[in-house]
């Protein structure tokens, strides 16, 4: 079907060229049209090339600046030491890397079950009027700025956690993970919801015809059939959680120590970059180390995109 469409498209592109083979006196108009067409085409190519250029500019600049870290700091120290004390020349970034990984894992641990349940709720269980009401609401929630969620965490969640646990300080991984959960939940639910809704109705009918009830149908048929879409949703949410800065900065505590409990003030890659970047000289190892951390983030997010691509490709081949 798709290939046929492409054939039609190429044929229609050739139709567009028919202006070249036309004859008559209107040469001026024809030349003008041809010129406008090719100019527009070139402008479009230039724009697409520019988008690629931006990505490579970013990659190049981040790498070139970041790699200067290793003039003074050894590779092993940067990646395997958790001692971050730039004033005294110690640049161990492990604690930030660990913080980012732990925070992302914790966020996914909380958000994925909730999101999938909400997606099932939206796609399978709700009556139609409620669905039509809730989907736009979730779409709006996706658009709420992250700094608002950070503010929410700082003014509502942290005092609340403090009361619950009886500690003086509630900043830390748990608070950040809850804030991130609230942030990525609408994204993951909506994308999973689309994936679940895209499962053909005949699968469900077949399952019901075999005598299974709704619970069995959803768990044995619908969720497995939409698993690839749900994984895609989770990766999207993960990318957002890893790269999120402002919401995390406001609740994580911003202390350069490794998190040994859920309530230890700590720091992650993004929060550390934004807190320190404005106070350091550009031409310093400290700054280079921050850029190296940014480069790490960049590489992680690009790897995830390649993973998504891979998933989609495999999906196309299988179906």
């Amino acid at each position, binding site marked *: 079907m798709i290939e046929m469409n492409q054939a039609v498209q190429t044929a229609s592109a050739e139709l567009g060229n028919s202006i070249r083979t036309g004859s008559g006196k209107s040469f001026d108009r024809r030349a003008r049209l041809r010129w406008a067409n090719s100019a527009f085409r070139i402008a479009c190519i230039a724009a697409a090339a520019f*988008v690629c250029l931006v990505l490579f500019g970013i990659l190049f600049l981040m790498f070139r600046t970041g790699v200067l870290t290793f003039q003074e700091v050894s590779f092993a120290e940067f990646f395997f030491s958790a001692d971050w004390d730039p004033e005294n020349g110690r640049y161990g970034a492990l604690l930030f890397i660990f913080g980012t990984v732990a925070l992302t894992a914790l966020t996914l641990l909380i958000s994925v079950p909730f999101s999938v349940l909400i997606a099932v709720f939206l796609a399978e269980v709700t009556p139609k009027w409620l669905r039509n009401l809730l989907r736009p609401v979730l779409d709006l929630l996706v658009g709420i700025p992250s700094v608002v969620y950070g503010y929410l965490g700082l003014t509502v969640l942290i005092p609340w956690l403090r009361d619950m646990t009886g500690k003086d300080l509630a900043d830390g991984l748990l608070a950040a993970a809850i804030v991130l959960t609230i942030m990525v939940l609408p994204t993951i639910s909506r994308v999973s919801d689309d994936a679940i809704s895209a499962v053909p109705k005949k699968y469900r009918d077949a399952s019901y015809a075999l005598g299974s009830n709704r619970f069995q149908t959803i768990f044995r048929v619908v969720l497995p059939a939409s698993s690839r879409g749900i994984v895609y949703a989770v990766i999207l949410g993960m990318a957002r959680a890893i790269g999120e800065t402002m919401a995390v900065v406001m609740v994580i505590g911003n202390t350069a120590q490794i998190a040994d409990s859920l309530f230890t003030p700590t720091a992650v890659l993004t929060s550390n970059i934004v807190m320190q970047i404005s106070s350091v000289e550009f031409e310093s190892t400290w700054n280079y180390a921050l850029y190296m951390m940014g480069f790490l983030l960049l590489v992680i997010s690009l790897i995830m995109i390649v993973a998504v691509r891979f998933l989609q490709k495999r999906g196309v081949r299988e179906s």
Partner: protein
Amino acid sequence: MNESTRSEAPYSFGKRNSSSALYDRIFTGLVWGIGILVILFIVGLLFMLLKNGLPKLTWDFLYSIPSEIEEGGGIGPALFNSFYLLAISLIISIPIGLAAGIYLAEFAPNNKLIDFVRICVEGLSSVPSIIFGLFGIALFVEMFQIGLTILGGAISLAFLNLPMLTRITEESIRAVPVEMKNASFALGSTHLQTIRKVLVPVALNGLVTGICLTAGRAFGESAVIILTAGVTTSGVMWDFNLFSPGETLAVHLWYVQSEAIVPDAQEIAQKATSVLIFIVLLINIVFRVPLWLNSRKTKS
């Protein structure tokens, strides 16, 4: 409940049926409960933020200049900068994003290179926003030596918008039925005329929605702005100078909440939050409602 009577039934699946029926009921209840509760919880939190801030708003607050030490500062310049930065970044990114999207949807041949370009666009859209901030610093503060400015912030923000706009354009243009395109070619129009007169108008619905989404996101973006446009304003209202520092509303909210020393920081933060949420919701709703109504009308 009637577990005991069921278990005496001679058919084995009678029992299995009842337990799975029980699961089904529990599961349905669980899904309803969690679905409603979580959504109500998040919406409730945001509603609470709006409720805390909106009634206290005065025109004076929206218009006056923020103060560093005394009470009663407003958010005038920050609010203005938010719109100003957003407008400049959209002016830069919309033409490039549209053109790149049209290229990918219409002109691009189907080969490895174009696949690679698509991966680039997707990759760029997944780059964390703080990386654009670091890029902005390296480019504008270091290379061009212009310091933290509105211009630097706007261009960095435009880079952030670009991949989203490109993808949205490509998707909306591709969604136009091929019959319409063929009809246009059959009438003798050139490719450019077809794009201008047929494809873009038909895809307009998707395009406007996409631009609204992008604008809403850019309006609330703060990490990029902190790094490239700074956390101060020039302290004057209606400052159109591209080279003055350009703190936006989202940045101001963060700044007031975590660094400022004004005594009424709490209240300013409450009010600024409600304004921020209100505007973002407005951008998302106002532009989409007419299109939504329109699509309903054409469908029925």
